[in-house]
């Protein structure tokens, strides 16, 4: 396999080109060539034993730490990844790639179709979590890393971590699976569907061809983001943050302006999201999450895997107030692994911050991730 690497200065990101590789997708479609935008942090050690792949969530990107040139803000997990942070880049070599189907430089609906000057748009093939992981595994291979020390992710990132454990257990030593599940639940699919309908009913969407007129279905995409954002919080956290407080006014307006702070906050979330995310990408990635389902197959896949997976360590973390990926879903993974006598650790962290807790200040999450990585790394180093 020949992989070409370049640096995109505008994106401040490395790009790996996989040409004539005929990536077969789970749907049966084939992408003949594709590219992945990725960032690395820290240094790969001489034995190449300290590489960690961080998988981003639905609207994340490769800018896990440092500056994100698209938003002009800090990377999405900069509180977790960096020198002396829980995922310590003084010790570990951290890789994060924009997923296949994403919109931060990797091949996705926003990018030009191979050999043409038109973007994919709605012609992009349907992709799954398995496809994303397959593409990532090619990236890791092209970086000449035989074995990742760890694959870490929350939410959609957790789905990828679990998929790594199923598909490439021989290429990893452990996974840290945060706020995830064996399957995307009916309720989660329902919320995604409302988001997609919001995008697709925006007249500017035009069957995914909005880019032809340099337009963006802003209304639809921002509504999708607003709905999704509610599901990432919890009732208590919302109440604590906003209550019924009014926004820039002392009395209610008897109209439909953003009277309440929570409305204003959601509108802001929607608006800023539109500036950084592609509507078609949102459709494809939410679909990929919907299709994720290892409910019936996980145990069998682990028990009868043709790649050896007995060595794998699993750290499963959930949050008490996460109603999108509730603790019970994490416990199903833990139960199945325990029934197979696998090396699994599980912690439910007590917080009111909802699904988004993994991105926020949660000292216990920091401690557990740091300790799990450090102590297990010592064990392989011995």
């Amino acid at each position, binding site marked *: 396999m020949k992989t070409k690497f370049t640096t995109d200065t505008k994106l401040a990101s490395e790009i790996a080109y996989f040409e004539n590789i005929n990536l077969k997708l789970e749907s049966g479609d084939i992408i003949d060539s594709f590219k992945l935008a990725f960032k690395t942090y820290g240094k790969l050690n001489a034995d190449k034993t300290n590489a960690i792949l961080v998988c981003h969530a639905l609207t994340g990107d490769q800018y896990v730490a440092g500056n994100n040139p698209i938003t002009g803000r800090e990377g999405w997990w900069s509180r977790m990844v960096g020198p002396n942070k829980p995922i310590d880049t003084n010790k570990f070599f951290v890789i994060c790639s924009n997923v296949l189907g994403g919109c931060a430089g990797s091949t996705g609906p926003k990018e030009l179709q191979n050999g043409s000057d038109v973007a994919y748009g709605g012609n992009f093939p349907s992709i799954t979590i398995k496809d994303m992981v397959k593409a990532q595994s090619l990236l890791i291979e092209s970086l000449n890393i035989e074995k990742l020390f760890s694959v870490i992710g929350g939410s959609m990132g957790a789905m990828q971590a679990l998929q790594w454990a199923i598909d490439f257990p021989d290429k990893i030593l452990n996974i840290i699976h945060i706020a995830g599940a064996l399957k995307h639940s009916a309720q989660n699919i329902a919320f995604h569907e409302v988001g997609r309908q919001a995008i697709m009913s925006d007249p500017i969407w035009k069957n995914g061809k909005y880019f032809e007129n340099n337009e963006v279905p802003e209304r639809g995409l921002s509504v999708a983001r607003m709905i999704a954002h509610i599901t990432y919080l919890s009732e208590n956290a919302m109440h604590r943050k906003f209550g019924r407080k009014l926004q820039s006014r002392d009395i209610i307006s008897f109209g439909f302006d953003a009277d309440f702070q929570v409305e204003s906050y959601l509108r802001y979330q929607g608006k800023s999201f539109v500036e950084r995310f592609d509507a078609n990408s949102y459709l494809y990635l939410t679909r990929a999450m919907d299709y994720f389902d290892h409910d019936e197959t996980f145990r069998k896949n682990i028990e009868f895997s043709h790649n050896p997976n007995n060595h794998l360590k699993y750290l499963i973390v959930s949050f008490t107030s996460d109603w999108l990926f509730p603790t019970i879903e994490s416990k199903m993974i*833990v139960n199945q692994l325990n*029934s197979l*006598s696998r090396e*699994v650790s599980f912690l439910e962290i007590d917080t009111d911050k909802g699904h988004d807790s993994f991105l926020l200040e949660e000292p216990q999450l920091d401690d557990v991730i740091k*300790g799990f990585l450090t102590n*297990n790394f010592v064990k392989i180093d011995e």
Partner: protein
Amino acid sequence: MNKINSIRKDWSLIETLIAQDRKILDIGCGDGGLMEQLENNRNAMTHGIELNRDLAANAIARGFNVVHGDAELDLSQYSNNSFDYVILSQTLQAMMKPKDILSELLRIGSKAIVSFPNFGHWKIRLQLLISGKMPVTESLPYTWYDTPNIHFFTIKDFLNLCNEMNIVIEKSIGLTSKGKQFDISESVTGVNFFTHEAIFLLSYKNFEPIKIKSSKKVFAKNSVIAN
């Protein structure tokens, strides 16, 4: 590697009951102290369950395989005979259904190690006799209304239960309140009077395939054979 001196006396006694290179489940493992000791001194492969969130987090952060959960609800997920030893140290008296837990221990493990404070100790008997109030001692330091210990039992009670459940006591160690150690089976008279803390190594006696009840209502596939 340096041998770690056990923090608790019963840990070092538990260690003496365990062979090298075995797979162990520690129920109520705290922050992993006993697991660490057994990994270092017995080259054990350890798993743990801990109900307390902060202790479980500490254990995981120290690199141990620990599941944050409730033994009374979560033991059913483990397969039959998936561990060489299952350890229940100082917690049987705090369980809602001690008998069920005991049979779960021997379903999951080939052997079980159970330690508990003896309610038949003379100090406890004396306290109840003289003061007429529920005893409060070093090993049972809680008041009756504020105690996690909901099932009090004596060595005699425990031996009767084992007998009823066809459980073999392979080894039993008693500790007096002064920390003197003795073999419970050899000193028949006064055992229940002087034993402050007891540690038992248990297994099943039957050579016949036996039915084991679990919350999943599955039956043990293989015969459980006492070594």
